[in-house]
């Protein structure tokens, strides 16, 4: 293992210490339990947004904390969900009296830890709602798996819902908006290499020079299928078509029902894309691909979208939801409307994303 680290067990702690020193005008960091929060938190009267998950996906989530985006982020160990006490303490620190929305990526660990945290926060009198992001089309069905994973759409949801919170949406409206972004966004990722979890010290899987994994998540795990290496155009086509041609996707998720005061099963259906849709196209670097490669992916994606009658109205290109130093990329398409466009364009000031300010 070759990494710019000191001790493997100190990676997350020292990263957080560095962020706190480098960006004091944007974030503060609390240790034990660990969480990153907005420097000006709590913002009175605003719904507070909190997300979190394993580390190793930087800038997500700590780098997405700040004006117009998250109020708090709970980093776990690398690729390991954080713990409920982090999420609870973060909620207590950032909530400004208008409630807290947890944005949770659909991984068993994240889901269970956030569920425990939401119950704990509510028993301490904090209003909480929780919305899942499950947008990874690599996962075909939800009956035989833990359901689609939360990937690229998470970044877009945090930006859009964050802007809406800043605008004064209430908790219920924000939860509805977050759900809307989730069902209108879809992603697909691929890997050219594996990656090495610092504490494990060796790559999670072996991937020969001439092969790649299609349908990977963001944890260095093997994907749906291994195949021989292809060109950027061919890879882009595979990823894009698996998103654009994906049929309606239906699954049951658990959400907090405020009136009943308990978790209830909710059935959600993602409508498929259709010609005439306006989309945001997000080409994400898994962390280890050279920046020169991403526009090559975007170029082909643009052509495919045009051919399919999808109009790209906004884009985002770069490393936003990474998988350590993995080489590879993911594509996310999000169907846009006027509300989402306005919120996307709204000012944001975080470590990883900044505009309009």
């Amino acid at each position, binding site marked *: 293992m070759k990494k710019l680290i000191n001790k493997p067990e100190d990676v997350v702690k020292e990263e957080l210490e560095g962020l706190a020193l480098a960006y004091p005008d944007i974030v503060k960091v609390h240790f034990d339990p660990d969480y990153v929060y907005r420097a000006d938190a709590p913002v009175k009267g605003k719904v507070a947004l909190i997300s979190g998950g394993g580390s190793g996906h930087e800038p997500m989530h700590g780098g997405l904390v700040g004006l117009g985006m998250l109020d708090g982020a709970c980093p776990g160990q*690398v690729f*390991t969900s954080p713990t409920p006490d982090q999420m609870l303490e973060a909620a207590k620190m950032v909530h400004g009296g208008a409630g807290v929305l947890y944005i949770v990526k659909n991984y068993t660990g994240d889901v269970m830890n956030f569920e425990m945290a939401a119950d704990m926060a509510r028993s301490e009198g904090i209003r909480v709602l929780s919305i899942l992001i499950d947008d990874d089309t690599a996962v075909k069905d939800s009956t035989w798996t833990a359901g689609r994973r939360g990937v690229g759409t998470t970044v877009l949801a945090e930006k859009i819902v964050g802007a809406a919170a800043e605008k004064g949406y209430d908790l219920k409206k924000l939860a509805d908006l977050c759900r809307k972004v989730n069902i209108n966004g879809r992603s697909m990722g691929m890997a050219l290499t594996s990656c090495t979890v610092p504490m*494990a010290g060796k790559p999670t899987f072996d991937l020969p020079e001439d092969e790649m994994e299609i349908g990977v998540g963001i944890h260095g795990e093997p994907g749906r299928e291994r195949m021989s290496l292809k060109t950027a155009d061919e890879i882009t086509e595979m990823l894009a078509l698996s998103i654009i041609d994906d049929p309606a996707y239906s699954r049951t998720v658990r959400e907090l029902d405020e009136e009943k005061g308990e978790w209830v099963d909710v059935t959600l259906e993602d409508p498929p894309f259709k010609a005439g849709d306006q989309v945001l196209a997000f080409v994400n670097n898994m962390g280890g691909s050279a920046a020169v490669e991403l526009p090559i992916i975007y170029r082909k994606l643009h052509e495919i979208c045009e051919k399919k009658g999808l109009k790209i109205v906004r884009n985002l290109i770069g490393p936003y939801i990474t998988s350590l130093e993995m080489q590879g990329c993911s594509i996310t398409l999000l169907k846009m409307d006027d509300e989402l466009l306005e919120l996307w364009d709204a000012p944001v000031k975080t470590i990883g994303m900044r505009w309009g300010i």
Partner: protein
Amino acid sequence: MAITTVDVLNCLRQMADVIHENKEYLTDLDSAIGDADHGINMDRGFQAILKKLPSVEDKDAGTILKTAGMALVSSVGGAAGPLYGTAFMQAGMAIAGKYELEAEDLLAILDAALKGVIMRGRANLADKTMVDAITPAVNVIREALGNGAGTVEVLEQAAAAAKKGMKDTIPMLAKKGRASYLGERSIGHQDPGATSSYLLINTMAEMARVKE
């Protein structure tokens, strides 16, 4: 043979040793069908338990197990944190107030632990999870108690059943947790969570054997 709170404390310390020794093994299993962190997660959790034990040395067995569960919840993260954390907390609740445990209490402990895992993770049998190791252990304890078995025998049978349950996960197709994303590719690998469950139950049996 009654199990005392000193035995419970020792058992937890021994569990921490066993998990520490198997940290790489569990992580390797998890890199085949997961994200290569299960051993690391479990080790972090049991080290956290060790730190908490001095504060409950004079408490009842229920409080000791509940405290261990809380230490797991607040230190492990991942899927294993809430699952094992809930298991230990529920187990502690099932023997609340007791300073000495008999064979029946072992059933109460493991049954409550299993119910806790299922409540939290909603896994079914044969989903290729820790449920597949704990369920046969609970069933066999219930049977052995009916036949009048004592503590050691009960736990030895439980460990054997958990071991078989763990091995039985190899041909299974994962339907819960991270491994489920691999579909057919999850077949042929032993589930890391079922393995750690076996290791923990086996440690209980060893504790009883040594004491006898």
